[in-house]
């Protein structure tokens, strides 16, 4: 059964060259990442992989300089401030997030999502934050709520700025979750019949209408983003948007399917620096 799915995937990927297709069979996450890097750099030899953290901006110098100007005085600074207050306000029991998370919550975002062997599933940073809340007698936030979880992570993730993405996939169960996320990424969905890879691998650097398409590597390191300067999007809210745009029904934010997708999608950005809360169109 599993083999069948993989064969279908391979067929779908045929046009992409053997490198990526072969990776779909029995590759390690590191080999998958290297294959993707090879694919992009052969296509765009003049763009450094390090610049992929800028997404589509890496392909367009004009938009990149507009972005740089906006980032000097980000229009969403008051939102980050709200997040900071949420982060610093103690729970009713007097404890704080910093007491509860490893390393006081600093320089940890690049370790997430991580596979929790005891729980047997992927744990995202948002889940770790919620675990902290419930362990201290607070109610969990809804993962899709931009006014609570969104704002809180908009600040909290800045504490990991500069950390290199460092997602680990160790052991058969972790590998199964990774493979599940990878399958979601490469499988066609929706009435319009796209996989994530149809756009962000096959067509990275192309335009869909006037929209330049970003490569999948580098996509996971800079969340949340403020679209249009004030509309907060977490990474999984973005996934939902991309599913909708191909007329597919997205699994809910925080679901195992999207968590596994985030696990795979983050690991291909391993080695790239984190930067929380950036501007996007």
């Amino acid at each position, binding site marked *: 059964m599993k083999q069948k799915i993989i064969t279908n995937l391979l067929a779908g990927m045929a046009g992409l060259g053997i490198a990526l297709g072969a990776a779909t069979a029995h590759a390690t996450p590191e080999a998958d990442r290297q294959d993707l890097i090879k694919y992009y750099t052969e296509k765009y030899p003049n763009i450094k992989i390090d610049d992929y953290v800028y997404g589509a901006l890496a392909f367009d110098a004009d938009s990149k300089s507009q972005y740089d100007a906006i980032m000097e005085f980000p229009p969403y600074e008051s939102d980050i401030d709200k997040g900071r207050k949420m982060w610093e306000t103690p729970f009713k029991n007097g404890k704080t997030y910093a007491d509860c998370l490893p390393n006081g919550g600093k320089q940890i975002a690049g370790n997430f999502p991580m596979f929790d062997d005891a729980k047997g599933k992927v744990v995202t940073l948002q889940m770790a934050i919620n675990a902290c809340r419930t362990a201290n007698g607070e109610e969990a936030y809804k993962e899709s709520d931009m006014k609570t979880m969104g704002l809180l992570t908009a600040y909290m993730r800045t504490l990991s700025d500069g950390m290199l993405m460092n997602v680990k996939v160790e052991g058969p169960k972790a590998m199964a979750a990774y493979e599940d996320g990878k399958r979601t990424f490469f499988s066609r969905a929706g009435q*319009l019949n796209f996989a994530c890879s149809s756009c962000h691998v096959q067509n990275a650097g192309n335009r869909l*209408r006037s929209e330049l398409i970003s490569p999948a590597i580098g996509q996971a390191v800079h969340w949340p983003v403020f679209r249009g300067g004030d509309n907060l999007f977490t990474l999984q809210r973005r996934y939902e948007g991309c599913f909708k745009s191909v007329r597919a029904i997205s699994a809910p934010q925080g679901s195992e399917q999207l968590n596994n997708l985030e696990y795979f999608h983050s690991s291909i950005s391993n080695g790239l620096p984190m930067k929380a809360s950036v501007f996007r169109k």
Partner: protein
Amino acid sequence: MRKLHQLITACAVGAITLTGSALAADAAKEPTGKQLAFDRSKGNCLACHGMPTQPDAESTGTYGPPLIAMSARYPDKAKLRAQIWDAMAFNPATTMPPFGKHQVMTEQEIDKVTDFIYGL
């Protein structure tokens, strides 16, 4: 001024629904092949294809090749229609949506779009 305009439009629409037969109203709404090809909720071909002979084909995407000289390149019009109906039949890795197979457009709509594209 704006208000007045809206009022007039509303009256016009009302008049059609009140006086015209159902058939006439439908005929008035029937989109052309070009309109279907340009419509973002139907063909949306411009998302991916340039159409160099159509001056109003603006901000076109680059996923697919420009659509030009189609009757020369597709002597068999049925093959052109088949490409639009399900591009995966010719290239399993294509990123062009299967407009017929996935019922993004009806058979009649695809006929019209094919006619329009054939003329490019």
